[in-house]
């Protein structure tokens, strides 16, 4: 244990110096990040509080639903924590350069594993806990618990809860690493994912009996079945149940139950920790060698995609080269296209839910109709902001230290910007347009509304891509290879804020035009709004690109 103590002492000192330096050098970035986190917590708190107050008005049913939401929330967080631990563990316990160094030291594998266990628990948990905090604060407020008491219960219950998730995640990764001797990791995780979804589906089929509350509300038998399920205890053998019961019993003053569930959490955390460490004693080093060997053995297959250049023969040679390079770089970065697919999946979920929602649009009052326009177009705009900030903003930075190739070539910088601009536009605009058209179809919108939405989305796409690309060049980070870190930097956050502000203005302009055309059409006002939209878009499309180009010209490599 003296190794651990020594390393933690050094680490604590180093982290303190790092934090002190970063506060000095990047106060804006830290300030904005803290503001965002605070905003998420406050925003989540307000949203949950409104929902909780609404539920309380429904009497006993509402209270039962609230308790169930609390339990479900922490269950979802538990599974997210396991997933997060698995993802983080691969870098923490295998790929970290520190591991290679410490394996050459006289430190036992178990001690090294314990060190990485705690590190992994910290790295994988903090962001997910930010999600759980608003729900817990609201629940505590509803149950009238004091702030200090809430903090004590949270700490007492949360730490073992986290440790259990970490233990599960690390045990899985140790076993998967061993199996990767015979199978590719990708295949193993795919298999595990399918198995997990299958188990999940089985659980819901056997415990919930397929209640479809939406649409069945008018049916008393369905409601009765739902209430019966609500009163039954959820699955009692997972830490999220124990954690939520610990909290609920604390609010009710049931000390014995608090001790029981607290004890269960603590025991399972210690058991998980010891089990994982025991397994690591046998498997850690061998799995480390397997992972190292796998990365050397499994080189990407030889590739020659130069035939793709023939498909681009309509373009000038320089554009052809740029499109060729950017396309291949994107396709060959799983981190990029997997997230792109996830975005697509979320859109599909939105559209499927919209298609199945029984919204009789024409029977709604004008105010509700306007709200729906607002949310629908706002969602399309929000989706574009997410896409552009995640994929377009980092584009210039991702040139990385290879930027010398473009700067030393006889290549006008405007070509670089234009190529990336149009590539992004021809990928993202059709997606945004598809959302708008399909959602308008499901909401039975008129042709006028659909046309207006198309025009507005066209302008929004051009503006948001320009904003993300231009500011991405102004705040470029050529030394950072991780696109997610680039997007979440200070420049990325500023871009998101400006983009959301822009979308807010456009949504309001669109709603105003729709509203004004419905009443006595006030053409003067409509013309004014349209002129404002034109000026806003001219500025948003042209200015960031100019600034970005200037930044790239001034760049000295």
């Amino acid at each position: 244990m003296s190794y651990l103590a020594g390393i933690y002492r050094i680490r604590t000192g180093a982290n303190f110096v790092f934090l002190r330096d970063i506060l000095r050098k990047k106060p804006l970035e830290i300030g904005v990040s803290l503001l965002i986190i605070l905003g998420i917590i406050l925003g989540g708190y307000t949203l949950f509080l409104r929902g909780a107050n609404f539920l309380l008005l429904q009497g006993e049913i509402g209270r039962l639903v609230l308790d169930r939401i609390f339990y479900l929330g922490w269950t979802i967080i538990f599974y997210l924590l396991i997933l997060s631990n698995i993802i983080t563990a691969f870098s923490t316990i295998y790929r970290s350069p520190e591991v290679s160094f410490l394996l050459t030291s006289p430190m036992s594998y178990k001690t090294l594993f314990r060190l990485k266990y705690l590190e992994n628990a910290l790295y994988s948990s903090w962001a997910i806990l930010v999600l759980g905090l608003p729900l817990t604060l609201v629940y505590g407020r509803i149950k009238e618990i004091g702030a200090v008491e809430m903090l004590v219960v949270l700490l007492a219950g949360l730490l073992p809860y986290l440790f259990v998730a970490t233990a599960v995640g690390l045990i899985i990764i140790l076993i998967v690493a061993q199996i990767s001797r015979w199978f590719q990791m990708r295949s193993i995780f795919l298999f595990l994912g399918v198995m997990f979804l299958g188990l999940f589906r089985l659980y819901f089929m056997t415990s919930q009996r397929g209640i479809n509350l939406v649409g069945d509300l008018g049916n008393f038998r369905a409601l009765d079945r739902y209430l019966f399920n609500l009163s039954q205890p959820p699955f009692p053998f997972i830490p999220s149940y124990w954690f939520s019961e610990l909290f609920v019993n604390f609010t009710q003053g049931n000390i014995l139950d608090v001790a029981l569930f607290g004890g269960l959490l603590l025991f399972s955390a210690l058991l998980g920790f010891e089990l994982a460490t025991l397994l690591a004693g046998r498997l850690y080093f061998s799995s480390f060698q397997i992972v190292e060997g796998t990365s050397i053995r499994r080189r990407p297959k030889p590739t020659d995609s130069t035939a793709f250049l023939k498909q681009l023969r309509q373009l000038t040679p320089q554009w052809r080269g740029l499109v060729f390079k950017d396309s291949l770089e994107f396709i060959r970065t799983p981190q990029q296209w997997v997230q792109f697919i996830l975005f697509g999946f979320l859109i599909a979920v939105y559209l499927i839910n919209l298609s199945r929602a029984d919204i009789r649009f024409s029977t709604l009052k004008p105010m509700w109709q306007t709200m729906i326009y607002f949310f629908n177009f706002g969602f399309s705009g929000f989706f574009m902001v997410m896409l552009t900030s995640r994929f377009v903003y980092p584009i210039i930075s991702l040139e990385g230290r290879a930027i010398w190739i473009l700067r030393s070539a006889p290549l006008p910088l405007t070509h670089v910007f234009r190529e990336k601009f149009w590539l992004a536009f021809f990928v993202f605009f059709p997606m945004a347009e598809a959302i708008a058209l399909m959602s308008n179809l499901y909401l039975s919108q008129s042709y006028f509304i659909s046309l207006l939405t198309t025009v507005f989305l066209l302008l929004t796409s051009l503006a948001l891509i320009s904003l993300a690309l231009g500011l991405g060049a102004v705040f470029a980070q050529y030394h950072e290879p991780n696109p997610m870190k680039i997007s979440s930097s200070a420049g990325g956050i500023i871009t998101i804020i400006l983009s959301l502000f822009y979308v807010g203005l456009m949504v309001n302009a669109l709603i105003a035009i729709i509203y004004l055309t419905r009443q006595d059409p006030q053409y003067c006002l409509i013309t004014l709004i349209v002129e404002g939209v034109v000026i806003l878009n001219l500025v948003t499309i042209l200015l960031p690109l100019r600034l970005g180009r200037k930044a790239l010209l001034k760049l000295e490599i």
Partner: protein
Amino acid sequence: MIELTNLTKTFGDLIAVNNISLKVASGELFSFLGPNGAGKTTTIKMIVGLMSPDNGSIHLNGIDIQKDPLTAKRQVGYIPDNAFLYPRLSGIEYLHLIGNLYEMTAVEIQEGIDRFVPRLELEQWLKDRIGGYSQGMKQRLVFAATFIHHPSVLVIDEPMVGLDPKSARIIKQLLREQAAAGTSVFLSTHNLNVAEELSDRIAIIHKGQILRFGSMTELRLSFGEDDNLEDFFLHLLAQEEGQEPDL
């Protein structure tokens, strides 16, 4: 031809390049020799347009790179030390990318590949991703990518970095062939053997200033016949530092 006139570059209080003037004729192999931090890389980056000088001018075959950068860059082939490339592209994809950036046709690119890839012994690795290349392989790939577009000015920063002896021999041969074909070759190095073996002329730079300039014959007149370039170089640096030379 490369012509530098009163070239100066400062970074805050540091004068990295201090009023340098020199000419490299067509077909000449010119070495810029100096210790770490002498200003070699800064000079090179100004020549290829990656940095702008604070004062002075740079002409490549008569074209001012600051006034007409695109035309000037069309003639230049640049090989940095420790080049960062696109790790997810394969070697052959990278060569096609460079060929397209220099507006070559597919036929020209293929001719260049057929000519230089075997010479640089890259055939075996050409379809592998650059991310899996060793430093030497990357360096050879960058050389191939530079040669295929037939630059009339070659600018190379530390040409032998990461190269094994056989590859180093091949590069030296290729550089001599390029010079013989009329290309102006400007290379920077702190490897005295490379400078001595390859160069028609050498400039010794220290703290941003050229200390000595000339062919090997002319430099030998400065230091005795019995001394070698290494001794002379160290003696010169020590003089500049006001120290006794450690020979």
